[in-house]
């Protein structure tokens, strides 16, 4: 039997204070699509960076085609025929496809960049694998699916026989996912080995030949894709304690807290981003918005917070029309905000925790009195949050960057729940936090809801959406296309609504 294309033996990788990978072993056969699944933070990306030479493992061995490799940099991995397509595309927008592809590996003649030869080679590869890439287009003019194909071509151009795809479907709409899977099938038939990282189990089962599950930094098991269900994989991923986010009895009241009517938003370039969005959230109700990322959810949140100006429609909070209010006035009137990207929108990383406590509440007691900041009161209140929300930190004076992701998120949630908000806008509240913190966050959301809080929940985690929401809307290309009852809904059904398949079925 031939040596496996890639074999990892006992890989351990430590970062200061954290073991990201512990004794990971797996084996990928040549010409197969091998999926690696695990929760966010389970250590998948760290493992792939090891394989791609972006850092070196502290222990263990990497074997390619049966030979042990010591990668010092990605270039070494590339030389060994390994290529990586990153989750965040590594493309220069202001360059053409051709320039992006040949960069670092340019054909030259007499010092000049040999554009003709490059173009021919790109066309050849594009045709061989059915990628349909046009070399002279500017990358910024390309759609997401095209960009991904450019990334794949970039890797193939360097002669890769082993392709690592890091969460490739996270940014794709369903049709693009179908196209991608078509491309992968083509690659496989040409003898390319594909390592596919994901946490979307249905997709994994569609495309992979075998699946390796990673949990808490180490490999749990490798299974054949045909022999397991999504439920089996999910249990392997989270271990025995599969926390299911279920709201118990309904606490929905009759009072409408947030009413959104006909909200319409354009991008600066005139593209429509939100199209006639209308919905209500009652006190004590969690309204979930499901949808593939990039369908307008993030912009809806920013419009509700007053960070974007809609071209039509209205928003009212507790009966007051707040459509033209500033962000500050909205926050003062009781909108709490858990941002999607806490480092970008939720924290001052270099500032202390008590200063972060003030953020978003700069006009509110007890931290602020009139124009003055009350440092002592702010420290005290931060200590309260640290206690009540179990934020693991030595004190309220440490800078926010020193905390782990889960503790940062707990701090943010504690902060946003303070001062009795009337509406909480929670965008991916459990993204990138560990299982324990996730359960705690769900518990806190449930308690707040029982106390009469109205919650808008945006999430990519379908179980979370179904389990937490009282009402679910599906967002597709800027429109709310379906309203569903989470009590009688499976993730599969929700998924088909999100892709628009259900729309097509019902006409």
């Amino acid at each position: 039997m031939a040596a496996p294309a890639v074999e990892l033996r006992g890989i351990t990788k430590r970062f200061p204070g954290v073991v990201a990978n512990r004794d990971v072993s797996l084996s990928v056969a040549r010409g197969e699509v091998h999926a690696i699944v695990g929760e966010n933070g389970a250590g998948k990306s760290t493992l792939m960076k090891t394989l791609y030479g972006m850092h070196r493992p502290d222990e263990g061995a990497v074997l390619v085609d049966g030979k042990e490799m010591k990668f010092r940099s990605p270039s070494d991995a590339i030389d060994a025929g390994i290529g990586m397509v990153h989750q965040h595309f590594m493309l220069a927008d202001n360059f053409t496809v051709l320039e992006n592809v040949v960069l670092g590996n340019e054909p030259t003649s007499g010092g000049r960049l040999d554009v003709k030869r490059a173009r021919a080679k790109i066309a050849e590869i594009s045709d061989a694998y059915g990628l349909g890439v046009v070399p002279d287009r500017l990358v910024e003019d390309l759609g997401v699916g095209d960009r991904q194909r450019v990334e794949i071509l970039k890797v193939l151009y360097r002669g890769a026989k082993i392709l690592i795809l890091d969460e490739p479907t996270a940014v794709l709409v369903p049709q693009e996912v179908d196209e991608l899977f078509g491309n992968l099938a083509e690659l496989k038939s040409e003898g390319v080995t594909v390592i596919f990282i994901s946490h979307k189990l249905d997709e994994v089962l569609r495309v992979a030949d075998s699946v390796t599950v990673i949990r808490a930094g180490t490999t749990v098991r490798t299974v054949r894709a045909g022999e397991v269900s999504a439920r089996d994989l999910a249990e392997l991923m989270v271990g025995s304690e599969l926390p299911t986010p279920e709201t118990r009895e309904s606490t929905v009241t009759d009072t409408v807290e947030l009413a959104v009517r006909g909200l319409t938003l354009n991008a600066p370039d005139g593209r429509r981003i939100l199209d006639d969005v209308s919905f209500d959230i009652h006190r004590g109700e969690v309204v979930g918005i499901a949808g593939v990322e990039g369908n307008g959810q993030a912009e809806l949140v920013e419009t509700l917070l007053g960070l974007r100006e809609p071209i039509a429609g209205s928003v009212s909070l507790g009966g007051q029309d707040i459509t033209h209010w500033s962000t500050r006035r909205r926050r003062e009137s009781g909108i709490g905000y858990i941002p999607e990207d806490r480092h970008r929108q939720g924290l001052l990383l270099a500032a202390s925790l008590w200063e972060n406590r003030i953020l978003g509440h700069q006009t509110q007691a007890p931290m602020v009195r009139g124009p003055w900041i009350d440092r002592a009161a702010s420290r005290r209140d931060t200590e309260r949050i640290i206690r009540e929300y179990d934020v693991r930190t030595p004190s309220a004076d440490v800078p926010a960057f020193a905390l782990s992701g889960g503790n940062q998120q707990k701090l943010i949630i504690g902060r946003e729940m303070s001062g009795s908000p009337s509406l909480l806008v929670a965008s991916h509240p459990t993204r990138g936090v560990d299982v324990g913190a996730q359960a705690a966050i769900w518990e806190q959301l449930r308690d707040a809801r029982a106390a009469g809080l109205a919650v808008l929940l945006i999430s990519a985690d379908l179980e979370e959406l179904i389990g937490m929401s009282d009402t679910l809307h599906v967002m597709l290309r800027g429109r709310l296309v379906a309203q569903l009852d989470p009590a009688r809904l499976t993730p599969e059904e929700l998924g088909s609504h999100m892709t628009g398949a259900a729309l097509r079925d019902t006409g």
Partner: protein
Amino acid sequence: MSTVTSTSGSGAPAAGRPGTGRRGLPARLSGRFSGTLLLVAAVLVLLSFVRVITGQEDITSSGTMGAALRLAIPIGMAGLGGLFAERAGVVNIGLEGMMILGTWFGAWGGFQFGPWWGVLAGIAGGALGGLLHAVATVTFGVDHIVSGVAINILGAGVARYLSVIAYAHTPGGGATQSPEIKRDIQTVTLPVLSGGTFFGWHSPDPLGSLERHRWFLVSDLAGILHGLTAGVSLLAVVAVLLIPASYFLLWRTALGLRLRSVGENPVSAESLGVPVYRMKYLAVIISGGLAGLGGAFLSIVGSSIYREGQTGGQGFIGLAAMIFGNWRPGGLAAGAALFGYADALQLREQSAVHALLLFTALLLALLAVRSAVRRAIRSAVFSAVAAAAFAIWFFGSDAVPPEFVSFTPHIVTLLVLSLAAQRLRMPAADGQPYRKGQQ
């Protein structure tokens, strides 16, 4: 300002402006090219017209053009220096300091060993400043603006100290200036057209005699060409050639592609094995060398002497010219030419500057008509009002205060930036600190 960039955009796949990457590329480019020609022609006719009306011969005289070229070159070299650094993602406010080093080392080398050695010394001095900037910004991740400001302060200090040491006991030298550089860099004159020597044969000077006839348009064109082709310092020729050479290096070679990739998306470049730090170092050192060359030109060709404060902020104007030119070589050359011309006219004939008010008014009026035809009413009204203002200024006064002329380049830069900022496109990762291995 889109027309300004055309000289550098012909046919390159990298002519990376939004929307040019689609089909119909050649047609678009040739359209842009003819648009530039049209604009140049219109400017020429207007200048000629204004000269005839006002009788200010210096507006298009060969003397003005020669001076404009001499004054534009330091600005252009500083701008080119800025281009290299910023294309690799490093903002270089330190150009001024590097230029100061160039003037000092240029004069010192010229005084000690001869002018061409001076040029080399000036380049080396500037490159040294570039190296410092690279160490601070690339290796230590210091903010680019902060480091640039520090280098400006340091450059001035080093030049002052070295002057005291090197020139204190030289004839005519001292703490603030060098002795005179005895030998000049030779000048060249184009044979056949401008009266240059050709294998020992003194050719006639048809452009020169045409200029003297003061014919509408013909003499103006002759004057401009004569000024640019007669008695030009060889170093100026080299400097001008560096502009297309830089274009070739940056947009047509593998090295250039790598260098620019570092300024657009360093993470991606590193993932493809491009040595990001090394590229940035190279770019910033070249940047300093070019600024140094501009400085050396100032001291060796411009005045045969180093004098403190000689650069007078031309490094900053070079930076402005680069922004004016949308981070492209052709554009920055146009910006440098414009600023050099304004300076030259002011130096030669104060009253001719007054005539430029009329020129500006007419140009704005034309723009207003063009906007009106295209139904861009707001910009038409804006241009018309500005045209009227300049016309009133022209007819209501006899001279432009010299102080106003001195800051014309700066006003123009601010105007261009505020009117065309949306159309300008700087490298995507310009000014951002980059650390190896970051994601």
